């Protein structure tokens, strides 16, 4: 039985018996004393009077006796609760407005909390997750993936880690039956044997990878995720030891991960295989073992601090040993970056989440202030009631407690409604969530979210109730009963005005944030991506199986697929590229070195000759690549304008030579300069790029993207294009089919998300602030009816009175705006990383926000002012 049910059953009966006994005890005392006084010769009336005087006010004594007993609080609580519920029920409109306002605030903050909590605050779902570190090489001060041999050296030489592991993406294709309808490509990871041990998670079924699995040309073994195992293999536990075909090879399934396993380093990965890099031949610097393409993690030994580990790895990086030679690009001269896993995976979204969290706290504050104001107004109306209760023996603490119970009950009601808002909000947040948000799967309304909502409701209940309770309980007995408490009403007015000013200030901060984000996005969308994004269909095609082991086979496939795609009606042009703008692909950056030795990081586009024409990338100088740039022809590249400008600054780059990728590769001759293209985001400033044909690349990429320019409707083309590719090879997996417009939209999803959230919050804030101003002014007008009546009787015109009220409202607004602008200027610091092309102090935004708020508050002032102007002096003066 929960406490309130018990209280409900026991409290009234117990209280009645206790009250009776208390009454009886007092009566006995008075009677005895009276009898004694009569015996001493007083008259009966006088004796009773003296006895009463000696005892003091019987109600007061009783109240003190009740207080002396510890069980009081429970009875009081129950009494207060029932009383509060009754009061709230009596004023359904007030209760509804208050509860709904709080529901907005509590609901919004609960929804945001449920999204932010697993990402920023909860520890990762691994045992001793704080001991998992991420380790990066450094390149020009920023993070860079490590090479396999760097990993080997660190793993061999360190004494601070229990285990270290490296991993990279692996996207195998599974064909369940030969010739089955559609091949499926999985997201997976190739990992060193210790990967799962570093995370501290073991397979639920079967076994973990062992050192013996992870060696060059080792056994083909694989571990499946629980979801994949259930989806493709019917959850059959006999799967362990069975063999499945991935990319034409037979892999033995050795394990299935537990159901709840969350792989924060690659959330979409469903399948794992050992890395099986070659640990021998360390001086073969051209091998993939010396390429920077591995993520690295490690688990600290118990008792070792991150600082100690950082120090040790730094020392190792700076002290080369003969056992581990290093090429110049992996010399570790600039040390390593060693950081906890949690901040590492949330690094990209932390500013966004903190900004959103700050925004929602402002919304909650504004909602609370609004309800505080409502309660203050209500307290003013109830001053008669409070005086009466005080006169009947209620102490000030008792009154305050009663009022707090009311506000907490109101907040609880708001919290309960808020949970509904939160549920809807969480769904909306997940649907809107920007690409790359870590731990999206962990976002849910769960126990800690409920606890948060409950806690914040209680807190808000106390906060919104405290000032009104203190205010209302400061009753002047005589004055209050007479319903004419002018002095306290004045104090209340001051508090209410201060609250409105703060509300306006908070709203300004939110509006400025929303305005800055809105203008950033507008600026960003106006940025030209460097190609014509309309009518472009894109999809990713991966070479599947051993028939594509030879580069020539890949080139042959590309040629035939393009031919087939160009036959599709509605296709204007088509091309393949190794790297597609706005696709989110990370691995396309290589070193490029010109003849004078100057080197750059460049995007390397290996694209079929028609690529620039298909994309609509403008040629600036020289010529485009064409079908004559074959393996036999002299190697040729196009370079981007920005690279031409950086390297040649005005001189003609045509005919100059450049190395791309490995230094032992051929010299490529620059034959043309093309317009800069944004690769990852419209906000990118880096646009150094080289373009070469597949035939002239030093290796053929595993994954190619197809871009198709449609004559008109681009989405309708997708099935026909896919079929055209499958007509060349029906086992070829095709993934991520999307129009370029979609990709473009997704690339700005973080900013768009921030903008939507801020705009929604700012709108709520604006509405709440407006109702706040309206509420205070109309309360003010009501209280000053008489004064207004006198003024107009003495000759004040309607315009005078209208002006007086509006002036009052606008003064509050102006004060709030002034304070809010200072706050906004300070708070906009938190948004800097999300802004683009707009200063955080952008004057246009600030002016626009001020105008908007002034307009809205003028409307909010106008209504009460109009009411005041229509006051008939005859009626108000007679009413008093």
């Amino acid at each position, binding site marked *: 039985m929960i406490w309130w049910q018990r209280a409900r059953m026991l409290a009234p009966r117990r209280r009645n018996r206790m009250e009776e*006994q208390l009454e*009886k*005890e*007092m009566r*006995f*005392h008075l*009677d*005895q*004393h009276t009898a*004694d006084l009569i015996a001493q010769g007083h008259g009966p009336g006088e004796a009773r009077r003296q006895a009463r005087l*000696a*005892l*003091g*006010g019987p109600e*007061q*004594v009783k109240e*003190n*006796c009740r*207080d*002396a*007993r*510890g069980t009081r609080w429970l009875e009081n609580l129950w009494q207060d609760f029932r009383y509060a519920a009754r009061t709230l029920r009596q004023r359904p409109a007030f209760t509804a407005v208050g509860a709904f306002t709080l529901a907005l605030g509590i609901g919004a903050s609960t929804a945001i909390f449920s999204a932010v909590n697993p990402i920023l605050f909860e520890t990762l779902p691994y045992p001793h997750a704080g001991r998992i570190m991420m380790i990066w090489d450094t390149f020009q001060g920023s993070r860079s993936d490590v090479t396999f041999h760097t990993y080997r050296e660190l793993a061999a030489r360190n004494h601070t880690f229990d285990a270290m592991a490296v991993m990279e993406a692996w996207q195998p294709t599974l064909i369940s039956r030969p010739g089955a309808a559609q091949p499926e490509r999985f997201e997976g990871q190739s990992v060193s044997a210790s990967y799962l041990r570093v995370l501290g998670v073991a397979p639920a079924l079967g076994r973990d990878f062992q050192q013996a699995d992870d060696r060059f040309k080792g056994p083909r073994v694989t571990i499946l995720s629980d979801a994949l195992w259930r989806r493709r293999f019917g959850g059959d536990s006999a799967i362990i030891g069975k063999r499945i075909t991935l990319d034409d090879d037979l892999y033995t399934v050795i394990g299935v991960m537990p159901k709840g396993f969350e792989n924060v380093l690659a959330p979409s990965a469903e399948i794992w295989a050992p890395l099986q890099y070659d640990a021998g031949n360390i001086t073969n610097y051209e091998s993939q073992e010396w390429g920077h393409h591995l993520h690295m993690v490690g688990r600290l030994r118990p008792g070792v601090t991150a600082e100690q580990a950082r120090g040790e790895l730094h020392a190792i990086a700076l002290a080369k040993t003969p056992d581990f030679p290093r090429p110049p690009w992996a010399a570790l001269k600039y040390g390593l970056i060693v950081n906890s896993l949690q901040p590492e995976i949330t690094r990209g979204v932390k500013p966004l989440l903190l900004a959103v969290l700050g925004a929602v706290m402002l919304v909650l504050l504004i909602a609370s202030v609004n309800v505080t104001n409502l309660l203050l107004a209500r307290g003013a109306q109830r001053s008669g009631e409070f005086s009466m209760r005080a006169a009947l023996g209620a102490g000030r603490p008792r009154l305050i407690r009663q009022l707090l119970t009311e506000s907490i009950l109101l907040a609880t009601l708001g919290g309960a409604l808020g949970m509904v808002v939160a549920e809807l909000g969480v769904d909306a947040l997940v649907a809107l969530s920007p690409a790359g948000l870590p731990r999206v799967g962990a976002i849910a309304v769960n126990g800690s979210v409920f606890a948060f909502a409950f806690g914040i409701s209680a807190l808000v209940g106390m906060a919104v109730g405290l000032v009104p309770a203190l205010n209302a309980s400061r009753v002047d007995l005589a004055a209050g009963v007479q319903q004419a408490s002018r002095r306290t009403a004045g104090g209340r007015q001051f508090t209410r005005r201060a609250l409105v000013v703060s509300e306006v200030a908070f709203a300004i901060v939110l509006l400025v944030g929303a305005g800055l984000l809105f203008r950033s996005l507008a600026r960003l969308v106006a940025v030209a991506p460097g190609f014509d994004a309309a009518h472009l269909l894109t999809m990713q095609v991966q070479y599947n199986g051993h028939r594509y082991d030879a580069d020539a086979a890949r080139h042959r496939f590309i040629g035939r697929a393009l031919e087939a795609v160009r036959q599709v009606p509605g296709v204007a042009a088509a091309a393949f590229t190794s790297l597609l703008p706005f696709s989110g692909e990370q691995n396309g950056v290589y070193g490029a070195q010109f003849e004078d030795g100057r080197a750059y990081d460049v995007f390397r586009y290996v694209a079929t000759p028609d690529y620039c024409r298909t994309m609509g990338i403008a040629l600036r100088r020289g010529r485009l690549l064409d079908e004559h740039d074959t393996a036999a022809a002299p190697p040729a590249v196009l370079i981007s304008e920005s690279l031409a400008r950086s390297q040649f600054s005005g001189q003609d780059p045509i005919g100059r030579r450049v190395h791309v990728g490995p230094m032992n590769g051929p010299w490529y001759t620059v034959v043309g300069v093309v317009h800069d293209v944004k690769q990852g985001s419209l906000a990118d400033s880096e646009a150094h790029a080289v373009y070469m044909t597949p035939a002239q690349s030093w290796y053929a990429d595993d994954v190619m993207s197809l871009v198709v320019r449609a004559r008109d409707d681009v989405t309708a083309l997708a099935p026909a294009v896919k079929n055209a590719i499958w007509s060349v090879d029906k086992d070829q997996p095709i993934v991520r089919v999307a129009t370029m417009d979609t990709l473009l939209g997704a690339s700005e999803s973080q900013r768009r998300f921030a903008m939507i959230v801020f705009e929604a919050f700012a709108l709520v804030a604006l509405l709440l602030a407006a109702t706040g101003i309206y509420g205070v002014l109309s309360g003010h007008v009501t209280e000053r009816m008489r004064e207004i009546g006198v003024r107009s009787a003495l000759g004040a015109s309607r315009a005078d009175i209208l002006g007086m009220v509006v002036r009052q409202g606008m003064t509050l607004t102006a004060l709030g705006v002034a304070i809010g602008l200072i706050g906004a200027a300070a708070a906009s610091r938190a948004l800097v990383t999300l802004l683009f092309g707009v200063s955080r102090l952008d004057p246009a935004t600030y002016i626009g926000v001020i105008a908007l708020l002034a307009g809205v508050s003028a409307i909010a002032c106008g209504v009460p002012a109009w009411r005041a102007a229509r006051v008939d002096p005859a009626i108000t003066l007679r009413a008093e």
Partner: protein
Amino acid sequence: MTAKSDLPQGTLDLLILKVAALGPVHGYAIAQRLQQVSRDVVQVPQGSLYPALHRLEFRGLLAADWKETGTGREAKFYRLTRKGRAQLETEAASWQRLTEAVALILTLSAEGAQ
């Protein structure tokens, strides 16, 4: 508890416990006895007496029963519990020590002044 008490803080509880130690007694009788025994020096503020009684009862130092008085009326009689007796002994002892010490200091300082 608005009524002013001339008794030092906490003394009222000690006196109540002492009176109750002599046998079950009702509130009015406690007030009377305190006044009589102290030859009217101790004015028990009646407004504080009852809250004190209820507090002592709640803390388990006193127990209460409803019984008939000599005049045939029902009254609430308080008696000392085992816990109350222990409390009385320690408090009485410490009061004794305190008053002796205070008296000692007062005489000493009178001598020292000479």
